[in-house]
C-alpha cells in the first residue's frame, strides 16, 4: 500500500481511504485476515492509536470486522463492498467535475470531451 499522506486532512481519515481502496479494488479480498494494528502502524509509520481509530471507522462502516481472539478480517458481504465502491466512485466524479468546472467546462462539454478522448485513444 502507498503510505504517503496529504497535509490538509486528518491522518486517520487518509488511512481509512487507503484501506478502503485496497478492499474495493480487491487487493485485500473479502474474508482476508488483516495485519495487526501495530504491524500496519509500523508499516505506515503512524501512531498505533491512529491506525486503531481508522479500523474503528472501517468497522463502523461494516467493511472490516474483528473476531475476539482471531484478529481482524475484511467483510465477506459483497453488497457492503460494492456500496463503498460506488460511494468512492461518486466522490471521485464529484472532484473531477469540480476541477473541470474550474476549467470552464459544463456538463455536456465534459461528457463529449471524455468520449472524444476515448475515440482518440482508439485511433
Amino acid at each position: 500500500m502507498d503510505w504517503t499522506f496529504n497535509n490538509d486532512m486528518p491522518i486517520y481519515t487518509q488511512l481509512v481511504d487507503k484501506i478502503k481502496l485496497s478492499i474495493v479494488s480487491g487487493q485485500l479480498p473479502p474474508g482476508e485476515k488483516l495485519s495487526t494494528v501495530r504491524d500496519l502502524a509500523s508499516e505506515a509509520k503512524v501512531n498505533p492509536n491512529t491506525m486503531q481509530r481508522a479500523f474503528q471507522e472501517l468497522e463502523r462502516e461494516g467493511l472490516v470486522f474483528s473476531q475476539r481472539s482471531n484478529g481482524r478480517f475484511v467483510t465477506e458481504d459483497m453488497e457492503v463492498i460494492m456500496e463503498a465502491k460506488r460511494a468512492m466512485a461518486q466522490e471521485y466524479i464529484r472532484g473531477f467535475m469540480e476541477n473541470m468546472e474550474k476549467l470552464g467546462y459544463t456538463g455536456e462539454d465534459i461528457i463529449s470531451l471524455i468520449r472524444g478522448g476515448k475515440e482518440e485513444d482508439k485511433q
Partner: protein
Amino acid sequence: MTATFECKGLSKNFGSTQALEDVNISIAPGRVVGLLGPNGSGKTTLIKLANGLLTPSEGEVLICGDHPGVESKAVVSYLPDKTCMPLWMNALQLMDFFQDFYQDFDRQRAENMLQRLGLDDRQRLRQMSKGTREKVQLIMVMSRKAKLYLLDEPIGGVDPATRDYILDTIIRNYDPEAAVVISTHLISDVEKILDEVLFINRGRIMLQASVDDIRQQYGKSVDEYFREVFKC
C-alpha cells in the same frame, strides 16, 4: 484514571530567568505526545523537572500520581538530549549496566534490536558514529517496560533514514499502557507518530491538542500550523 504525567501550576526560574511559567498539562496512559517549541522555549527544562533532575520553583510535577523520586525513576525511561552513557562501554556492557539498574529492562528485546542493527557487540560507544550511538541509546531506553518514556530530541542531528529507524523503534516498542513524550523541533518527521502535541513558547504552554484535530480544524499539518504560530 491517574494521569501518567501531570504538571500543576509548574514554574521554574533560573535566577531572574523564567524558564517555565504556570505549566498545567496532563498526559494519559497510551498517548504519544510531541513537546514542540523553538530553541530555548523550555522543552528540556520541563523534561528535567519530570525526571527530578531539577526541582520546581513553584507548583508540582506528578508521575503516575507521585512526585519525582526513587519510585518514579523506576517507571520513567529517559533519553537525555546529550549522550549520557559511558563511552568506554560496548553494547554488551551497556546491557549489563541497564540490567543492574532497572528491573524493567528486557534484555532479550535489546539483544534482538541490536542484532537487527548488525552491530559488533564489542565495539565501544566511543568508536561508533553519532547516528549509531543514538540508535544504541534509544534501544536501551526503549527496552525498558516503563510507564513513561521521556525522549529529549531523539532525532536531532541524525540523517533521515536513521530518523525513520528511531521513530519506528519508538512506535514498535512502547507499551500500549505507557505514555511517550518526544521533544523536538523536527515536527514534520514526528507528526505522523503523535497522538497529541504540546506547543511551548517562552516557558508557557500555548496549546495541547490532538494532531488530527489540528489537521481537521485548520486544514493544514501540525508542521505548517507550527510555522504559522511561531512565525519570526
